[in-house]
Protein backbone atom coordinates (compact mmCIF):
# COMPACT_ATOMS: atom_id res chain seq x y z
CA UNK A 1 0.00 0.00 0.00
CA UNK A 2 1.40 3.38 -0.95
CA UNK A 3 -0.90 5.21 1.47
CA UNK A 4 -1.01 4.71 5.24
CA UNK A 5 -2.56 6.51 8.20
CA UNK A 6 -0.97 7.66 11.43
CA UNK A 7 -2.10 9.69 14.38
CA UNK A 8 0.77 12.02 15.24
CA UNK A 9 2.01 15.06 17.10
CA UNK A 10 4.10 17.56 15.16
CA UNK A 11 7.48 17.99 16.86
CA UNK A 12 9.10 20.31 14.36
CA UNK A 13 8.40 21.99 11.03
CA UNK A 14 11.29 23.22 8.90
CA UNK A 15 10.72 25.43 5.87
CA UNK A 16 12.18 24.28 2.59
CA UNK A 17 11.74 25.99 -0.75
CA UNK A 18 8.94 28.55 -1.01
CA UNK A 19 6.02 26.97 0.79
CA UNK A 20 6.99 23.38 1.63
CA UNK A 21 7.75 21.97 5.06
CA UNK A 22 9.73 19.01 6.36
CA UNK A 23 7.80 17.82 9.40
CA UNK A 24 9.14 15.73 12.24
CA UNK A 25 6.13 13.78 13.52
CA UNK A 26 5.85 11.54 16.53
CA UNK A 27 3.16 9.03 15.70
CA UNK A 28 1.37 6.56 17.92
CA UNK A 29 1.76 3.78 15.35
CA UNK A 30 5.30 4.23 13.99
CA UNK A 31 7.16 6.50 16.38
CA UNK A 32 9.20 9.30 14.89
CA UNK A 33 8.87 9.93 11.15
CA UNK A 34 10.03 12.74 8.90
CA UNK A 35 7.65 13.67 6.12
CA UNK A 36 7.26 16.33 3.45
CA UNK A 37 4.21 18.59 3.36
CA UNK A 38 4.05 20.27 -0.03
CA UNK A 39 2.53 23.75 -0.18
CA UNK A 40 1.71 23.73 3.55
CA UNK A 41 2.75 27.38 4.05
CA UNK A 42 0.37 28.74 1.41
CA UNK A 43 -2.64 30.55 2.91
CA UNK A 44 -5.05 28.35 0.96
CA UNK A 45 -3.47 25.02 1.97
CA UNK A 46 -5.88 22.60 3.64
CA UNK A 47 -3.01 21.06 5.63
CA UNK A 48 -1.80 24.36 7.09
CA UNK A 49 -3.47 24.13 10.49
CA UNK A 50 -2.60 20.47 11.05
CA UNK A 51 1.11 20.83 10.33
CA UNK A 52 1.85 23.49 12.95
CA UNK A 53 4.27 22.37 15.68
CA UNK A 54 2.62 20.89 18.81
CA UNK A 55 -0.66 20.08 17.01
CA UNK A 56 -2.08 16.57 16.99
CA UNK A 57 -3.59 15.32 13.75
CA UNK A 58 -4.52 12.24 11.75
CA UNK A 59 -2.25 12.08 8.73
CA UNK A 60 -2.69 10.19 5.51
CA UNK A 61 0.84 9.68 4.26
CA UNK A 62 2.10 8.55 0.89
CA UNK A 63 5.31 6.55 0.62
CA UNK A 64 8.05 8.39 -1.25
CA UNK A 65 11.53 7.48 -2.40
CA UNK A 66 13.33 9.39 0.35
CA UNK A 67 10.69 10.99 2.52
CA UNK A 68 7.00 10.14 2.69
CA UNK A 69 4.62 12.98 1.84
CA UNK A 70 1.51 14.28 3.57
CA UNK A 71 -1.48 13.51 1.40
CA UNK A 72 -4.17 14.64 3.85
CA UNK A 73 -4.15 15.95 7.41
CA UNK A 74 -7.11 16.15 9.75
CA UNK A 75 -6.47 18.26 12.83
CA UNK A 76 -7.52 16.64 16.13
CA UNK A 77 -6.14 18.95 18.80
CA UNK A 78 -4.32 22.22 18.46
CA UNK A 79 -3.42 23.15 22.08
CA UNK A 80 -3.97 26.87 21.36
CA UNK A 81 -2.68 27.92 24.82
CA UNK A 82 0.81 26.82 23.78
CA UNK A 83 0.86 29.54 21.13
CA UNK A 84 -0.58 32.30 23.27
CA UNK A 85 1.78 32.30 26.27
CA UNK A 86 5.50 32.78 25.86
CA UNK A 87 6.46 30.48 28.76
CA UNK A 88 4.19 27.65 27.56
CA UNK A 89 5.53 27.98 24.03
CA UNK A 90 9.06 27.68 25.40
CA UNK A 91 8.26 24.60 27.52
CA UNK A 92 6.33 22.91 24.69
CA UNK A 93 9.35 23.44 22.42
CA UNK A 94 11.57 21.88 25.08
CA UNK A 95 9.34 18.78 25.48
CA UNK A 96 9.11 18.33 21.70
CA UNK A 97 12.87 18.70 21.35
CA UNK A 98 13.48 16.12 24.09
CA UNK A 99 11.29 13.55 22.32
CA UNK A 100 13.00 14.32 19.02
CA UNK A 101 16.45 13.96 20.58
CA UNK A 102 15.83 10.75 22.53
CA UNK A 103 13.95 8.73 19.91
CA UNK A 104 15.09 7.07 16.70
CA UNK A 105 13.06 7.12 13.49
CA UNK A 106 10.62 4.31 12.89
CA UNK A 107 10.56 2.86 16.43
CA UNK A 108 7.00 2.80 17.73
CA UNK A 109 6.58 4.03 21.31
CA UNK A 110 2.86 4.63 21.92
CA UNK A 111 3.47 5.40 25.60
CA UNK A 112 5.78 8.29 24.63
CA UNK A 113 3.10 9.58 22.28
CA UNK A 114 0.52 9.49 25.09
CA UNK A 115 2.93 11.17 27.51
CA UNK A 116 3.68 14.02 25.12
CA UNK A 117 0.04 14.49 24.16
CA UNK A 118 -1.05 14.57 27.80
CA UNK A 119 1.76 16.95 28.74
CA UNK A 120 0.87 19.40 25.94
CA UNK A 121 -2.71 19.34 27.21
CA UNK A 122 -1.67 19.97 30.83
CA UNK A 123 0.83 22.78 30.19
CA UNK A 124 -0.68 25.85 31.78
CA UNK A 125 -2.87 23.85 34.19
CA UNK A 126 -0.12 22.14 36.23
CA UNK A 127 2.95 23.82 37.75
CA UNK A 128 5.02 24.07 34.58
CA UNK A 129 8.46 23.34 36.00
CA UNK A 130 7.18 20.32 37.96
CA UNK A 131 5.33 19.00 34.92
CA UNK A 132 8.54 19.34 32.92
CA UNK A 133 10.54 17.37 35.55
CA UNK A 134 7.87 14.65 35.61
CA UNK A 135 7.91 14.51 31.81
CA UNK A 136 11.69 14.19 31.80
CA UNK A 137 11.85 11.31 34.27
CA UNK A 138 8.91 9.48 32.69
CA UNK A 139 10.41 9.86 29.21
CA UNK A 140 13.79 8.60 30.40
CA UNK A 141 12.05 5.61 31.99
CA UNK A 142 9.97 4.76 28.92
CA UNK A 143 13.04 4.84 26.71
CA UNK A 144 15.30 2.87 29.04
CA UNK A 145 17.53 5.69 30.31
CA UNK A 146 16.12 6.01 33.83
CA UNK A 147 18.65 6.93 36.53
CA UNK A 148 18.77 4.42 39.39
CA UNK A 149 17.03 6.10 42.35
CA UNK A 150 16.23 3.21 44.71
CA UNK A 151 19.62 2.09 45.96
CA UNK A 152 23.33 2.75 45.44
CA UNK A 153 24.01 2.00 41.78
CA UNK A 154 27.53 0.79 42.65
CA UNK A 155 27.20 -1.43 45.77
CA UNK A 156 23.41 -1.94 45.85
CA UNK A 157 23.25 -0.73 49.45
CA UNK A 158 20.96 1.88 51.01
CA UNK A 159 21.51 5.48 49.88
CA UNK A 160 21.91 6.87 53.37
CA UNK A 161 21.43 10.47 54.51
CA UNK A 162 23.13 12.37 51.71
CA UNK A 163 23.07 10.48 48.41
CA UNK A 164 25.21 11.61 45.48
CA UNK A 165 24.05 11.57 41.87
CA UNK A 166 26.67 10.48 39.34
CA UNK A 167 25.86 10.61 35.61
CA UNK A 168 28.61 8.19 34.58
CA UNK A 169 27.52 5.64 37.20
CA UNK A 170 23.93 5.93 36.00
CA UNK A 171 22.19 7.08 39.17
CA UNK A 172 22.55 7.56 42.92
CA UNK A 173 25.58 6.53 44.94
CA UNK A 174 25.80 6.05 48.68
CA UNK A 175 28.30 8.44 50.39
CA UNK A 176 30.90 5.62 50.71
CA UNK A 177 30.87 4.73 46.98
CA UNK A 178 30.61 8.43 46.03
CA UNK A 179 33.90 9.12 47.83
CA UNK A 180 35.61 6.85 45.26
CA UNK A 181 34.17 8.72 42.25
CA UNK A 182 34.78 12.26 40.97
CA UNK A 183 32.18 14.70 39.73
CA UNK A 184 29.13 13.63 41.73
CA UNK A 185 26.26 15.91 42.69
CA UNK A 186 25.36 15.84 46.38
CA UNK A 187 21.62 16.04 46.99
CA UNK A 188 18.98 15.59 49.68
CA UNK A 189 16.99 12.48 50.41
CA UNK A 190 13.87 14.55 49.72
CA UNK A 191 15.03 15.22 46.16
CA UNK A 192 15.38 11.49 45.44
CA UNK A 193 12.02 10.79 47.07
CA UNK A 194 10.31 13.53 45.00
CA UNK A 195 11.86 12.19 41.79
CA UNK A 196 10.45 8.74 42.63
CA UNK A 197 7.03 10.33 43.22
CA UNK A 198 7.18 12.18 39.90
CA UNK A 199 7.92 8.88 38.23
CA UNK A 200 4.95 7.08 39.81
CA UNK A 201 2.29 9.77 39.95
CA UNK A 202 -0.12 10.60 37.19
CA UNK A 203 0.68 14.01 35.68
CA UNK A 204 -2.76 15.35 36.63
CA UNK A 205 -1.97 14.92 40.35
CA UNK A 206 1.21 16.99 40.29
CA UNK A 207 -0.41 20.16 41.65
CA UNK A 208 -0.67 18.39 45.02
CA UNK A 209 3.12 18.37 45.30
CA UNK A 210 4.83 21.41 46.82
CA UNK A 211 8.58 20.73 46.83
CA UNK A 212 10.76 23.57 48.14
CA UNK A 213 13.08 25.58 45.88
CA UNK A 214 16.20 23.60 46.83
CA UNK A 215 14.55 20.29 45.86
CA UNK A 216 13.29 21.78 42.59
CA UNK A 217 16.79 23.04 41.79
CA UNK A 218 18.43 19.70 42.60
CA UNK A 219 15.91 17.74 40.54
CA UNK A 220 16.55 20.01 37.57
CA UNK A 221 20.32 19.63 37.93
CA UNK A 222 20.15 15.82 38.24
CA UNK A 223 17.83 15.30 35.27
CA UNK A 224 19.63 17.77 33.07
CA UNK A 225 23.02 16.23 33.84
CA UNK A 226 21.60 12.77 33.18
CA UNK A 227 20.09 13.74 29.82
CA UNK A 228 23.14 15.65 28.66
CA UNK A 229 25.34 12.70 29.61
CA UNK A 230 23.30 10.40 27.34
CA UNK A 231 22.70 12.87 24.51
CA UNK A 232 26.16 14.44 24.64
CA UNK A 233 24.63 17.82 23.88
CA UNK A 234 22.36 20.49 25.31
CA UNK A 235 18.83 21.20 24.19
CA UNK A 236 18.58 24.25 21.94
CA UNK A 237 15.22 25.28 23.41
CA UNK A 238 16.87 25.80 26.82
CA UNK A 239 18.54 28.84 25.30
CA UNK A 240 15.08 30.23 24.55
CA UNK A 241 13.78 29.40 28.03
CA UNK A 242 16.76 31.19 29.52
CA UNK A 243 16.13 34.22 27.27
CA UNK A 244 12.60 34.58 28.59
CA UNK A 245 13.72 33.93 32.19
CA UNK A 246 11.91 30.60 32.51
CA UNK A 247 14.66 28.03 32.97
CA UNK A 248 13.92 26.88 36.51
Amino acid at each position, binding site marked *: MRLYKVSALVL*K*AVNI*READLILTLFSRERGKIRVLAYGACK*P*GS*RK*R*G*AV*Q*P*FSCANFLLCRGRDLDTVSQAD*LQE*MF*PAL*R*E*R*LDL*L*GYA*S*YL*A*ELVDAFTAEGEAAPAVFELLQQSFGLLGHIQTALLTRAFEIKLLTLLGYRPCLESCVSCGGALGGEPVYHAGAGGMLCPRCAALQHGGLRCRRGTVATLRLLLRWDLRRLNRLRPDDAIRREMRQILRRHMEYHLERRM*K*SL*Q*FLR*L*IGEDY
Partner: protein
Amino acid sequence: MRYYAGPVARLIDELARLPGIGNKTAQRLAFHLLNAPPEAAHNLARAVTEARDSVRFCKICANLTDSEVCQICADPGRDQTQICVVGEPKDLVAMEKTRGYKGVYHVLQGVLSPLNGVDADSLTIRQLLARLEGGRVREVILATNPNVEGDATALYLARLIKPLGVKVTRIAHGLPVGAHLEYADEMTLAKALEGRREV
Protein backbone atom coordinates in the same frame (compact mmCIF):
# COMPACT_ATOMS: atom_id res chain seq x y z
CA MET B 1 38.08 14.82 -16.23
CA ARG B 2 37.03 18.37 -17.13
CA TYR B 3 34.14 18.53 -19.58
CA TYR B 4 33.95 22.33 -19.87
CA ALA B 5 36.56 25.02 -20.38
CA GLY B 6 37.69 26.64 -17.11
CA PRO B 7 35.55 29.85 -17.21
CA VAL B 8 32.41 27.92 -18.21
CA ALA B 9 32.92 25.37 -15.44
CA ARG B 10 33.44 28.22 -12.96
CA LEU B 11 30.27 29.98 -14.10
CA ILE B 12 28.28 26.74 -13.68
CA ASP B 13 29.78 26.17 -10.22
CA GLU B 14 28.92 29.71 -9.10
CA LEU B 15 25.35 29.50 -10.42
CA ALA B 16 24.84 26.11 -8.74
CA ARG B 17 25.62 27.74 -5.36
CA LEU B 18 22.41 29.78 -5.56
CA PRO B 19 19.40 28.48 -3.59
CA GLY B 20 17.04 26.24 -5.56
CA ILE B 21 19.49 25.81 -8.43
CA GLY B 22 20.96 22.40 -9.12
CA ASN B 23 23.72 21.45 -11.56
CA LYS B 24 21.42 20.94 -14.55
CA THR B 25 19.69 24.29 -14.09
CA ALA B 26 23.08 25.96 -13.57
CA GLN B 27 24.27 24.50 -16.89
CA ARG B 28 21.13 25.70 -18.65
CA LEU B 29 21.52 29.23 -17.25
CA ALA B 30 25.22 29.30 -18.12
CA PHE B 31 24.57 28.30 -21.73
CA HIS B 32 21.75 30.80 -21.98
CA LEU B 33 24.14 33.55 -20.91
CA LEU B 34 26.85 32.35 -23.30
CA ASN B 35 24.46 32.17 -26.25
CA ALA B 36 22.75 35.51 -25.53
CA PRO B 37 24.21 38.83 -26.81
CA PRO B 38 27.21 39.92 -24.70
CA GLU B 39 25.22 42.87 -23.23
CA ALA B 40 22.83 40.49 -21.47
CA ALA B 41 25.67 38.92 -19.50
CA HIS B 42 27.37 42.28 -18.86
CA ASN B 43 24.11 43.85 -17.64
CA LEU B 44 23.46 40.94 -15.29
CA ALA B 45 27.02 41.09 -13.92
CA ARG B 46 26.72 44.84 -13.40
CA ALA B 47 23.32 44.53 -11.70
CA VAL B 48 24.65 41.88 -9.30
CA THR B 49 27.77 43.91 -8.46
CA GLU B 50 25.87 47.17 -8.02
CA ALA B 51 23.19 45.59 -5.84
CA ARG B 52 25.78 43.84 -3.68
CA ASP B 53 27.97 46.93 -3.27
CA SER B 54 25.34 49.63 -2.84
CA VAL B 55 22.58 47.92 -0.86
CA ARG B 56 22.80 48.19 2.92
CA PHE B 57 20.46 48.26 5.89
CA CYS B 58 18.51 51.42 6.68
CA LYS B 59 19.98 52.90 9.86
CA ILE B 60 16.48 53.50 11.24
CA CYS B 61 14.35 50.49 10.29
CA ALA B 62 16.96 47.93 9.05
CA ASN B 63 15.20 47.54 5.70
CA LEU B 64 17.31 47.07 2.56
CA THR B 65 18.16 50.40 0.95
CA ASP B 66 20.73 52.04 -1.31
CA SER B 67 21.01 55.17 0.84
CA GLU B 68 21.57 55.75 4.54
CA VAL B 69 17.84 56.02 5.27
CA CYS B 70 15.28 54.07 3.22
CA GLN B 71 12.52 55.75 1.17
CA ILE B 72 9.81 54.86 3.67
CA CYS B 73 11.62 56.27 6.71
CA ALA B 74 12.53 59.42 4.75
CA ASP B 75 8.94 59.98 3.54
CA PRO B 76 7.42 62.93 5.52
CA GLY B 77 3.92 61.71 4.62
CA ARG B 78 4.35 58.56 6.70
CA ASP B 79 2.93 58.34 10.21
CA GLN B 80 6.03 58.10 12.42
CA THR B 81 3.97 57.27 15.51
CA GLN B 82 3.07 53.81 14.20
CA ILE B 83 5.71 51.12 13.64
CA CYS B 84 4.91 47.83 11.93
CA VAL B 85 7.43 45.14 12.91
CA VAL B 86 8.17 42.47 10.28
CA GLY B 87 10.65 39.59 10.13
CA GLU B 88 12.16 40.04 6.67
CA PRO B 89 12.32 42.76 3.99
CA LYS B 90 10.05 40.62 1.78
CA ASP B 91 7.34 40.79 4.49
CA LEU B 92 7.59 44.57 4.36
CA VAL B 93 6.99 44.44 0.59
CA ALA B 94 3.91 42.23 1.16
CA MET B 95 2.54 44.77 3.67
CA GLU B 96 3.26 47.68 1.32
CA LYS B 97 1.32 45.96 -1.47
CA THR B 98 -1.84 46.27 0.61
CA ARG B 99 -1.55 50.09 0.26
CA GLY B 100 -3.57 50.33 3.44
CA TYR B 101 -0.76 51.06 5.87
CA LYS B 102 0.66 54.56 6.19
CA GLY B 103 2.99 54.14 9.16
CA VAL B 104 6.67 53.16 9.18
CA TYR B 105 8.34 49.76 9.56
CA HIS B 106 10.97 47.92 11.52
CA VAL B 107 12.65 44.86 9.99
CA LEU B 108 13.93 42.37 12.57
CA GLN B 109 16.13 40.53 10.06
CA GLY B 110 14.87 37.17 11.30
CA VAL B 111 12.73 35.69 14.03
CA LEU B 112 13.30 33.89 17.32
CA SER B 113 13.25 30.14 16.89
CA PRO B 114 12.82 28.15 20.14
CA LEU B 115 13.53 24.82 18.43
CA ASN B 116 16.60 25.88 16.48
CA GLY B 117 18.35 27.76 19.23
CA VAL B 118 17.96 31.47 19.43
CA ASP B 119 20.16 34.47 19.32
CA ALA B 120 18.12 37.56 20.14
CA ASP B 121 21.26 39.67 19.64
CA SER B 122 21.36 38.77 15.96
CA LEU B 123 17.96 40.43 15.48
CA THR B 124 17.43 44.20 15.44
CA ILE B 125 15.45 44.19 18.70
CA ARG B 126 17.82 46.62 20.41
CA GLN B 127 17.42 49.16 17.57
CA LEU B 128 13.64 48.81 17.83
CA LEU B 129 13.68 49.52 21.57
CA ALA B 130 15.94 52.52 20.94
CA ARG B 131 13.37 53.89 18.46
CA LEU B 132 10.69 53.68 21.13
CA GLU B 133 12.70 55.65 23.69
CA GLY B 134 11.76 59.12 22.45
CA GLY B 135 8.11 58.65 23.45
CA ARG B 136 6.96 59.64 19.96
CA VAL B 137 5.74 56.19 18.96
CA ARG B 138 2.15 55.43 20.02
CA GLU B 139 1.63 51.95 18.54
CA VAL B 140 3.75 48.96 17.54
CA ILE B 141 2.05 46.49 15.20
CA LEU B 142 3.59 43.02 15.37
CA ALA B 143 3.32 41.54 11.87
CA THR B 144 5.48 38.43 12.17
CA ASN B 145 4.23 35.23 10.53
CA PRO B 146 1.48 33.35 12.42
CA ASN B 147 3.67 30.27 13.05
CA VAL B 148 5.59 29.12 16.14
CA GLU B 149 8.63 31.31 15.41
CA GLY B 150 6.51 34.34 14.53
CA ASP B 151 4.32 33.92 17.62
CA ALA B 152 7.36 33.45 19.88
CA THR B 153 8.92 36.64 18.49
CA ALA B 154 5.67 38.61 18.82
CA LEU B 155 5.09 37.47 22.42
CA TYR B 156 8.70 38.24 23.35
CA LEU B 157 8.55 41.72 21.80
CA ALA B 158 5.20 42.43 23.48
CA ARG B 159 6.78 41.54 26.82
CA LEU B 160 9.64 44.01 26.19
CA ILE B 161 7.56 46.86 24.73
CA LYS B 162 4.44 46.94 26.93
CA PRO B 163 6.28 48.23 30.03
CA LEU B 164 7.38 51.25 27.94
CA GLY B 165 3.76 52.39 27.78
CA VAL B 166 3.45 51.87 24.02
CA LYS B 167 0.31 50.21 22.63
CA VAL B 168 1.24 46.79 21.19
CA THR B 169 -1.04 45.09 18.65
CA ARG B 170 -0.76 41.89 16.62
CA ILE B 171 -2.07 41.60 13.05
CA ALA B 172 -5.36 39.70 12.90
CA HIS B 173 -5.46 35.98 12.12
CA GLY B 174 -8.37 34.54 10.23
CA LEU B 175 -9.66 33.00 7.04
CA PRO B 176 -7.81 33.80 3.83
CA VAL B 177 -9.85 35.38 1.03
CA GLY B 178 -11.59 32.67 -0.99
CA ALA B 179 -11.16 29.97 1.67
CA HIS B 180 -13.83 27.42 2.68
CA LEU B 181 -15.00 27.30 6.28
CA GLU B 182 -15.05 23.50 6.35
CA TYR B 183 -11.30 23.34 5.74
CA ALA B 184 -10.37 25.91 8.38
CA ASP B 185 -8.71 24.61 11.54
CA GLU B 186 -10.17 25.36 14.97
CA MET B 187 -7.54 27.94 15.89
CA THR B 188 -7.99 29.94 12.68
CA LEU B 189 -11.77 29.86 13.12
CA ALA B 190 -11.49 30.89 16.77
CA LYS B 191 -9.22 33.79 15.78
CA ALA B 192 -11.58 34.75 12.96
CA LEU B 193 -14.48 34.80 15.41
CA GLU B 194 -12.48 36.89 17.89
CA GLY B 195 -11.72 39.46 15.22
CA ARG B 196 -15.22 39.62 13.71
CA ARG B 197 -16.58 42.99 12.62
CA GLU B 198 -19.98 44.48 12.23
CA VAL B 199 -21.10 44.81 8.60
